């Protein structure tokens, strides 16, 4: 994005537009995440709305990924398209336009699918030949069939099994055992003994079993990949809303530089609507700052010279010049990221059910097969028989069903959650979600929408309402927008000389009197502890316009169903006491704390964990990130800051909170299914292994055991959908 020029006209452009310009993609390809698409009619509506935009060449919706990709001229911005979709009722987020990583993910998936297909076709052909052998093909015919099977199976397995060889090799090199080591060993041993048997025109060859094994395992691997690829790409590519550039003042001239180039003592200009890039002190200008993402305070803070500001705050009304006191790694924003890093190291120690199974399984199988080999060799002194039996044991115990047990369930569960608007980012998130017994919510932006609404509009006289609307129209301040929204049926009064006094409010003239809308101190009113602005007409007493943060859709439902399901529900907020108490009261949460600092949130969660509670943290702000990372599992809404989304395991795509309660129920069901699947897989082994050790197993029995257990496991997983 080298288009930021020294063009003088650009400096005159209002900041919001400048910000939009900076987001303009170089490529004519735009990608949008549209989480609410769910049916055929949605596809048509969204595509039609997008294609109606000037400059758009074509739009295509992908329902599986809930995305729209748009081919358009260079003058089309994502913001315009998002606004167009908003009009037809769909919320959209921009995805990183240079979505190179998305196509790379896709390539990996396609590669796996291709291997699945190839293994499938090879299996079918070899199986045809094997069936004729099982049904009695003899002597020369059997040898011929075995040779043809070998000719198909050897190259097919060599090629399609690559993901397993790579994974097993990297595990062995790190001196570990993973699930892939016994798999590869079984495949190699099966092929080697089968080839040997074929050369000696023996009766049993396991080419079909080895291929079936590879086919089923690849299918499991593909399911796993798809679940994760969908979640990963959507979660990580939600484009950062902030432009990582700042305006530096050098000898009175403005220059645009990347964040990384800022130094201590630089003077930095922050325009209204911009995010403060560094920690510093205000040296010039007056404005109001929105600190909600850092501290959870919902009311804007007055800012003037000498106020200390932190990176991540949003400037609302007037331009500010800031002298940097800490940049880059030293800003409070980054210190918060460090908190996250320490908290996260704890989480990586979580061992999933699959890991536990693999830890028991791999050594068990190897020892069993080695014992069978040694036992039979000592009994018969026949290397060929002993090796054949060892291979049969390895193949029959091979974790076909185990390999499918977890991915089949997580695919079904994640798919169901995705349709409800929840994106599972982390592999073990479902299992951890199932263990939760306590839920901690953040307030601003999580339980509430973060956009205020006017509480007492009806109490205003028509004249005053008209004046307030007229004044509010001159400002982009969030409270002004709330007033305009509340007064959309009120006709604006006829005012002259409307101007914005940065940091204080709006002023104008009405019928010869000065009218003001703004902070309590400015209009001469007593400030109350709730979020409010004051309207003063002429010399009369100032009238109060109160604001209230709106509850998110489904917040009430989510809390009620969580409480009735027996979860402990807590509310932690950095906001003022009265605002938090109001929300807690409305939702019926008895455990709440106000004015909580970020570190306190993390400590609160740690204390709950100490008591043996498994905590689910739901939050969106920077002040929540440490708590999100420290909790057993965490959820953040898509509107959350980047850092919060990265720290959380599950992202809530829609605006509705109610899926959270369902997510907990589904995750419990999913974990139950995974355990059932392990039991099913073990049951098949309990029946088949003694046969194999006793030397009674034939390729037919191996094929039957493998296919039935895999299919049972998959069907069991499908019950979740």
């Amino acid at each position: 994005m080298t288009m930021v020029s020294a063009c003088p006209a650009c400096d005159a452009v209002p900041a919001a537009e400048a910000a939009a310009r900076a987001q303009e993609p170089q490529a004519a390809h735009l990608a949008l995440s549209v989480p609410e698409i769910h049916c055929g009619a949605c596809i048509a509506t969204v595509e039609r709305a997008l294609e109606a935009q000037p400059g758009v060449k074509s739009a295509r919706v992908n329902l599986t990924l809930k995305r729209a990709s748009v081919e358009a001229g260079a003058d089309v911005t994502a913001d315009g398209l998002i606004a167009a979709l908003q009009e037809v009722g769909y919320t959209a987020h921009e995805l990183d336009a240079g979505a190179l990583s998305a196509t790379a993910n896709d390539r990996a998936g396609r590669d796996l699918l291709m291997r699945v297909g190839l293994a499938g076709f090879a299996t079918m052909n070899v199986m045809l030949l094997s069936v004729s052998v099982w049904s009695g093909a003899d002597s020369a015919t059997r040898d011929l069939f075995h040779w043809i099977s070998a000719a198909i199976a050897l190259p097919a397995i060599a090629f399609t099994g690559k993901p397993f060889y790579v994974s097993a090799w990297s595990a062995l090199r790190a001196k570990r055992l993973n699930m892939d080591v016994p798999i590869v060993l079984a495949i190699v041993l099966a092929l080697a003994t089968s080839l040997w048997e074929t050369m000696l025109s023996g009766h049993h060859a396991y080419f079909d079993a080895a291929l079936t094994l590879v086919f089923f395992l690849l299918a499991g691997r593909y399911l796993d990949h798809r679940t994760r690829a969908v979640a990963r790409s959507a979660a990580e590519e939600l484009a950062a809303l902030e432009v990582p550039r700042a305006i530096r003042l050098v000898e009175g001239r403005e220059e645009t530089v990347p964040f990384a180039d800022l130094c201590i003592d630089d003077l930095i200009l922050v325009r209204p609507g911009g995010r403060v890039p560094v920690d510093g002190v205000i040296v010039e200008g007056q404005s109001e700052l929105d600190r909600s993402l850092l501290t959870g305070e919902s009311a804007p803070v007055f800012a003037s010279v000498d106020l200390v500001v932190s990176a991540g705050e949003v400037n609302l009304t007037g331009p500010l010049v800031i002298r940097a006191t800490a940049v880059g790694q030293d800003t409070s924003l980054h210190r918060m990221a460090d908190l996250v890093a320490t908290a996260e190291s704890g989480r990586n120690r979580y061992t999933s059910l699959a890991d536990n199974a693999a830890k028991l399984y791999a050594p068990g199988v190897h020892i069993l097969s080695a014992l069978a080999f040694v036992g039979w060799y000592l009994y018969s002194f026949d290397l060929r028989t002993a090796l054949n039996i060892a291979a049969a044991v390895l193949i029959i115990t091979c974790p076909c069903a185990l390999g499918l047990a977890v991915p089949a369930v997580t695919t079904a569960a994640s798919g169901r959650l995705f349709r409800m608007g929840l994106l599972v980012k982390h592999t073990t998130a479902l299992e951890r979600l199932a263990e939760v017994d306590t839920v901690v919510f953040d307030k601003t932006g999580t339980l509430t929408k973060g956009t205020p609404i006017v509480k007492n509009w009806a109490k205003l006289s028509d004249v005053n309402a008209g004046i307030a609307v007229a004044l509010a129209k001159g400002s982009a301040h969030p409270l002004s927008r709330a007033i305009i929204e509340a007064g959309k049926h009120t006709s604006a009064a006829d005012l002259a000389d409307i101007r914005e006094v940065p940091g204080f409010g709006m002023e104008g003239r009405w019928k010869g009197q000065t009218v003001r809308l703004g902070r309590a101190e400015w209009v001469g009113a007593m400030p109350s502890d709730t979020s409010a602005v004051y309207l003063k007409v002429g010399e009369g007493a100032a009238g109060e316009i109160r604001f209230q943060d709106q509850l998110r859709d489904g917040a009430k439902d989510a809390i009620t169903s969580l409480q009735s399901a027996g979860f402990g529900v807590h509310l932690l907020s950095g906001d003022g006491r009265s605002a938090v108490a109001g929300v807690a009261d409305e939702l019926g949460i008895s455990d709440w704390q106000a004015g909580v600092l970020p570190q306190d949130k993390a400590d609160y969660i740690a204390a709950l964990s100490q008591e043996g509670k498994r905590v689910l943290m739901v939050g969106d702000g920077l002040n929540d990130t440490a708590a999100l990372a420290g909790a057993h599992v965490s959820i953040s809404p898509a509107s959350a800051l980047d850092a919060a989304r990265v720290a959380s395991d599950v992202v809530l795509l829609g605006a509705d909170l109610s899926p959270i309660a369902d997510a907990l129920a589904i995750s419990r069901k999913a974990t139950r299914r995974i355990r059932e699947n392990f039991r099913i897989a073990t049951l098949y082994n309990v029946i088949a292994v003694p046969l194999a050790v006793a030397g009674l197993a034939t390729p037919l029995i191996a094929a039957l055991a493998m296919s039935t257990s895999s299919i049972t496991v998959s069907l069991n997983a499908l019950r979740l959908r």
Partner: protein
Amino acid sequence: MTVLGLLIPVSLILGGLGLWGFLYTLRSSQYDDPDGDAQRILSGEYDDRPKS
């Protein structure tokens, strides 16, 4: 048993044809949006040619 000399190549060729078809559909992105394609077939809005 000489019929085998005919049948085995035939089965291999038919299998190969299926495999080729699968690889073709895979390469032309026909598995990228299974849910969407399932819905699109019911849509009344279609044109004469596939979208490029």
